[in-house]
């Protein structure tokens, strides 16, 4: 903790970064993102097990960018978000400085994408066993049982778009949902609108999702949205050998192909 404060103070003092995005104390027992812009503000930094939010989403926010060079306290998901964003030409190498807090309290500083790539090769980036189990449970159901499950979940959706706003990969200036010539996804949060929206979002995140879980934790109606995209991680990995957010120069799995891609359903 003191390590972090010391480091961020130094980064701000020698102007390596102008703003450092870290965690601070929030309401009640919550943790929130804070934007540290001076050495005095570093006192507000907090680091504990509740610090799970993927802060990489903020590095693309217009008003944060205006503050100057960004440093960010990145967890594994945030590091992967950065690489994925890099592969989609949203961040340039060296543009954002990332600090990673090791379990032993030390800090690892990443100033370029290469070091993140190397670091991630020895890091567990998979989804949790709990999440795996939930997916397995759903997969064990019949198709119509799954339809009913999702129907019930989507019924709760109020289309507040918190999932989209919280997702570091949902950075489009105009989301497909908001494209209205023609209006492809119904804006209404009725069954059809919700089904369309969530399937569209899952499909657009297939091969890009870095399993940070922000969508599900942002959802005020507690819809397990992350399962939709998590479920696609494994077929994309086994089928095409691709995992999102591991290489800064990766080619998006769904914008490329291999002549011998395996399938068993095309006649």
């Amino acid at each position, binding site marked *: 903790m003191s390590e972090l404060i010391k480091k961020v103070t130094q980064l701000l003092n020698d102007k390596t970064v102008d703003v450092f995005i870290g965690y601070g104390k929030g309401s009640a027992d919550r943790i929130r993102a804070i934007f540290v812009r001076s050495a005095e503000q570093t006192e507000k930094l907090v680091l504990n097990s509740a610090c799970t939010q993927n802060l990489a989403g903020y590095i693309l926010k217009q008003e944060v960018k205006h503050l100057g060079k960004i440093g960010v306290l990145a967890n594994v998901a945030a590091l992967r978000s950065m690489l994925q964003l890099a592969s989609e030409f949203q961040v340039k190498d060296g543009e954002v400085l990332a600090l990673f807090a090791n379990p032993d309290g030390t800090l690892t500083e990443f100033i370029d994408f290469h070091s993140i790539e190397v670091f991630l090769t020895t890091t567990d980036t998979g989804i949790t066993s709990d999440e795996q189990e939930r997916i397995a449970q*759903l*997969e064990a159901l019949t*198709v*119509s*049982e*799954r*339809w*009913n*499950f*999702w*129907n019930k979940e989507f019924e709760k959706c109020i289309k507040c778009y918190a999932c989209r706003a919280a997702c570091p990969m949902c950075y489009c200036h105009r989301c*497909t949902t908001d494209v209205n010539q023609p209006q*492809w*996804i119904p804006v209404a949060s*009725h*069954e*059809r609108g919700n*089904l*369309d929206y969530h*399937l*569209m979002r*899952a*499909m657009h995140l*297939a*091969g890009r999702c870095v399993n940070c879980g922000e969508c599900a934790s942002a959802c005020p109606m507690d819809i397990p949205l992350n399962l*939709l995209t998590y*479920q*696609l991680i494994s*077929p*994309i990995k086994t*089928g*095409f050998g691709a995992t999102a957010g591991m290489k800064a120069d990766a080619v998006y*799995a*769904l*914008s*490329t*192909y*291999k*002549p011998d*891609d395996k*399938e068993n*359903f*095309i*006649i």
Partner: protein
Amino acid sequence: MQEFEPKIVAFVCNWCTYAGADLTGTSRIKYDANVKIIRFPCTGRIDFMILMKAFENGADGIIVSGCHPNDCHYSTGNFHARRRWIVFRNLLNFAGIETERIQFSWVSAAEGFKWADVVNNTVKKIREFGPNENYKKIAVSTLFNEEGTSNE
């Protein structure tokens, strides 16, 4: 009760399957009339949202068909499409939508007989599956017919 006649929409590539379907016709091969063909420049252009829309607008089944691998008019469109279909089928299945309702196939301009087979088999399969009830419940017409406004 009237017997269920499946409505099938076929999204086909202009260069292979469309020509193939044409050949089926000019060869006077008979096939089920349940299918409505929509021509696309390439299977690579067939977005998954177009397929979702077909269901919403009352399709009981969908056929997506294009050039055999390596035969794409634009070299690689069908390869790209194939990848997306693999992922999309996974997603549909996980979301509880019967993937059997979408038949993907490669039909070349010379395969008039194959096109007739694809259509006939799909119609037969969908006939067994029955109407796409899940989607009928959420169609615009359902919204239109719903009684007034409630506060429940």
